[in-house]
């Protein structure tokens, strides 16, 4: 009786522990996601260098225009809304991919793409406007840092849109195969991570930059 109680008391937690620890090798999907997450973190570390440069050079305007004179906050709010909604619809597309609904996947991906393109169009217009007003990247250290950071994010969004279109074509041509699902998982992570970086951009560059 005593031995039985002893065994019962210790067997249960041990079984639970073994279930948690010895699951065998993780599935390919988990390993792919983990590897891509490491890449995203290294990308975020790279962006942190641009953020540091911008924060250091914020006051170095060389007699040129400051952030408060240049930035158009309503414009930035529209850009933010575009990117946030496109991140949300990318999430909707991942739900559609998981239930393998071709129609909804393509619809949500198209919405994601249109919002991403709207973001890029507004950003490009803003850059062209700044250059036309003589506030291009060569005007001051502050503007060099600004164009480097925001332009680098814009390049990432452009690459993301190319990837998005590739994913739409691959799902259309090959269906929701396991390897296509893994590629889409990586794309969704990339797109959400771009939105995280944009949170830093609109807070540090635009809101703090126009306050300084």
């Amino acid at each position, binding site marked *: 009786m005593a031995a039985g109680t002893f065994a019962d008391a210790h067997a249960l937690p041990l079984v639970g522990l073994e279930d948690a620890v010895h699951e065998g090798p993780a599935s390919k999907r988990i390993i*792919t996601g983990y590897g891509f997450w490491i890449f995203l973190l290294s990308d975020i570390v790279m962006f942190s260098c641009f953020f540091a440069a911008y924060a250091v050079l914020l006051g170095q305007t060389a007699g040129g225009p400051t952030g408060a004179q240049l930035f158009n906050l309503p414009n930035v709010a529209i850009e933010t809304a575009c990117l946030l909604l496109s991140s949300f619809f990318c999430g909707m597309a991942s739900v559609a991919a998981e239930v393998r609904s071709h129609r909804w996947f393509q619809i949500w991906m198209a919405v994601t793409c249109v919002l991403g393109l709207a973001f890029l169009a507004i950003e490009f217009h803003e850059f062209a406007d700044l250059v036309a007003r003589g506030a291009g990247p060569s005007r001051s250290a502050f503007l060099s840092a600004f164009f480097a950071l925001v332009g680098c994010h814009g390049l990432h969004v452009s690459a993301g849109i190319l990837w998005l279109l590739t994913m739409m074509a691959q799902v259309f041509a090959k269906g929701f195969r396991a390897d296509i699902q893994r590629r889409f998982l990586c794309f969704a992570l990339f797109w959400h991570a771009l939105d995280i970086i944009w949170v830093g951009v*609109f807070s540090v560059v635009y809101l703090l930059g126009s306050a300084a």
Partner: protein
Amino acid sequence: MSELHDTHRQAGLAPGDEEEINVRYRVLGYVVGLALAILLTATSFFVAGTDLVWQPSIPVAIVVLAIAQMGVHLVFFLHITTGPDNTNNVMALAFGLMIVFLVIGGSLWIMTNLNHNMMPMDQIMKMQR
């Protein structure tokens, strides 16, 4: 299909994964994330332009709101959670955050210090003449 089944039997989840395919529950997660993100963004933009709060607190408020919103994105959109199946992802995130804070904090600290200790530019110009 068998791989999908295997994935869901596994305890470990990739970032971006959820254990159950429950459409309503998953959509609700994204909607909650979107609502929180909109709330935090709107607060951020409001705080930046208002006269209602003590002015020197505004930069701190904006930074705090931004960090909160990044957390919302990580949890609701990238599904980085504190669950036991997500340990590797969280550890990688912690290491990444450490590097980010070292780079940004260290740069700001050193450069402020240098600026503080450096002679004003016009005096340097006078010395060079």
